[in-house]
């Protein structure tokens, strides 16, 4: 436990890599209060510890994983479908058991969460860039541009995101039938990000409409700063607060969307299995009693999604001045 506590301080920065770096001044200004509220919230600390554990395991899978699940040469079919080590037929070598090809589940989980986290974070970053950009433009320029962007948002919002992601994914697959790994990842990330940008666009547009009425923007106009520069240097830093919160929670959503798409068989290529792919593969073995092949990836997915969600909830309260 003492060890875990020593991990906790590293967490606040670790929870934020998905979010484009807020300007230093803002971050420093928030740091004091946010840190204080973090120390006093046991839920946030536990969530942060779990999230950090998952991230560390995923990041350093190469060194931490007991086996290399992607190296076909090391697989032994003799070791296939072994139950977890604590069950009678389990081997200590494979803590969480093995799958049908003799892959170590624990190692597959580490490598799998790396892929899930990567796709999730990348999709959030792309969503934030698109959403914040369009939101700023919409709020700052107004008029027809605004009306058009907001109409597109309305239409997007009236369809469930999983459906839109599936469609974009399907179109991508149809356009590049022989897509190799990198391209498959790109298509997947684009599909997930194109469904997620709407909330950023709407939030940022709202705050931009407020900000642009303020005196500092007028002052900047008066001294002849170009609109593009006002948007980028003056308005943007002031509308990023809510984006930070949205982005944190969005990481969980994006990871779940990725898992769902991979589970449906239209996500990451089968050569680099993510958590969703592992669950998909494992589902076939449920009936022959090999529950561990699908349940462990499922548990890891739940752990990641829940801890990120809880962190996001905490961050929302911590950054909300009315609740302080």
């Amino acid at each position, binding site marked *: 436990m003492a060890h875990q506590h020593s991990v906790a301080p590293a967490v606040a920065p670790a929870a934020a890599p998905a979010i484009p770096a807020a300007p230093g001044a803002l971050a420093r200004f928030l740091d004091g209060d946010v840190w204080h509220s973090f120390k006093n919230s046991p839920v946030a600390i536990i969530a942060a510890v779990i999230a950090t554990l998952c991230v560390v395991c995923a990041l350093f899978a190469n060194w931490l994983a007991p086996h290399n699940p992607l190296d076909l040469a090391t697989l032994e079919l003799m070791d296939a479908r072994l139950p977890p080590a604590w069950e009678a037929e389990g081997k200590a070598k494979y803590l969480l058991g093995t799958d049908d090809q003799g892959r170590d589940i624990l190692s597959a989980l580490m490598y799998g969460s790396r892929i899930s986290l990567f796709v999730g974070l990348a999709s959030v970053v792309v969503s934030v860039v698109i959403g914040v950009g369009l939101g700023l433009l919409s709020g700052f320029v107004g008029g027809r541009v605004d009306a058009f962007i907001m109409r597109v948002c309305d*239409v997007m919002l*009236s*369809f*469930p995101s*999983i*459906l839109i992601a*599936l*469609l974009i*994914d*399907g*179109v991508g*697959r*149809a*356009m590049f*039938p022989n897509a190799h790994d990198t391209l498959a990842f790109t298509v997947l990330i684009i599909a997930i990000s194109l469904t997620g940008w709407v909330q950023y666009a709407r939030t940022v547009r709202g705050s931009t409409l407020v900000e642009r009425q303020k005196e500092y923007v007028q002052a900047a106009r008066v001294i002849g700063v170009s609109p593009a520069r006002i948007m980028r240097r003056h308005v943007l830093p002031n509308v990023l607060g809510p984006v930070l919160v949205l982005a944190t929670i969005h990481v*969980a959503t994006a990871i*779940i969307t990725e*898992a*769902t798409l991979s*589970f*449906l*068989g*239209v996500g990451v290529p089968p050569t680099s299995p993510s958590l969703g792919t592992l*669950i998909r593969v494992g*589902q076939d073995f*449920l*009936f022959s*009693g090999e*529950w561990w092949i*699908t*349940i462990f990836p*499922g548990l890891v*997915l*739940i752990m990641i*999604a*829940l801890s990120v*969600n809880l962190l996001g909830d905490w961050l929302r309260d911590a950054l909300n001045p009315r609740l302080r």
Partner: protein
Amino acid sequence: MLAFILRRLIQAMIVMVTVAFIAFMLFQYVGDPVTNLLGQDATPQQREALRRDLGLDQPFFVQFAKFAVNAAQGEFGLSLRQGRKVSVLIAERFPATLELATVAALLGLLLGIPLGVYAALKRGSFMSQVVMTGSLLGVSLPNFLIGILLILVFAVQLKWLPSFGRGDVVSFGNLSTGLFTIDGLKHLVLPAFTLSLFPMTLVLRLVRSEMLEVLRTDYIKFARARGLPDRSVYFRHALKNTLVPVITIAGLQLGAIIAFAIVTETVFQWPGMGLLFIQAVQFADIPVMAAYLCLIALIFVTINLVVDLLYFAVDPRLRIERSAAGH
């Protein structure tokens, strides 16, 4: 009022035309229909002849108009994977999805409303906190995982319920349903419950917050002051007034349920439209994808439109607010 309806209708039309256009672009530019039909080694003359037969040499807008007319009649050509008419394929699969979605929606309402009322009336009690935490889990857990866990518990461990397919079905003309056979009903339990969790949590949370809101109003206090029994206050006065938004949201969710059925149908191998669609995505079967896209868009737009109009008709306060806001 008339202007509002007209604006909504026009918006719906724009969405449908946009979706049809996307579907058309899919047909035209993703995958070459001529190659698909003739194969790689056709002569240029054959290709040219087929292009003319298919009308591919005509101007863009003529082609789009033709596509739209065909689509409006439900005609999307042949499935690339199965070589059968898309309209027939979808017609075969539609009843299964309809059955699943309807039962899930009803389940969501029938469980969600009482639970929501309970959580509002006994706010702060242990059980209502259990309900609220459970609903939070229901929202944040991936749906397919819940399905798998249910299979593990009820199908694999306890062996109470079957976990894939529809079981025995009874056919009425084009519609087939498993609602009238024991086997069919058994097969329906797990997928329908899994699919209903999402609308259920939504309805539960909505009913709870609306109830809390309504219970604070003056007319509830007045009803209490008149000495009406609790049951009458809660159910005849309070609940009635929370149901307008609930029904609206439930209506809007019907479309979402049909879309989410894609995932549930995959988990439980339920032979509905969603499974058809996911196979189409896996194999880049454009005609099926385009047809599904248009059908889903039509369902969504219709539901949105009906709900909007209903909302408008049912709640007189909105009429004033909306026209004041220039909506």
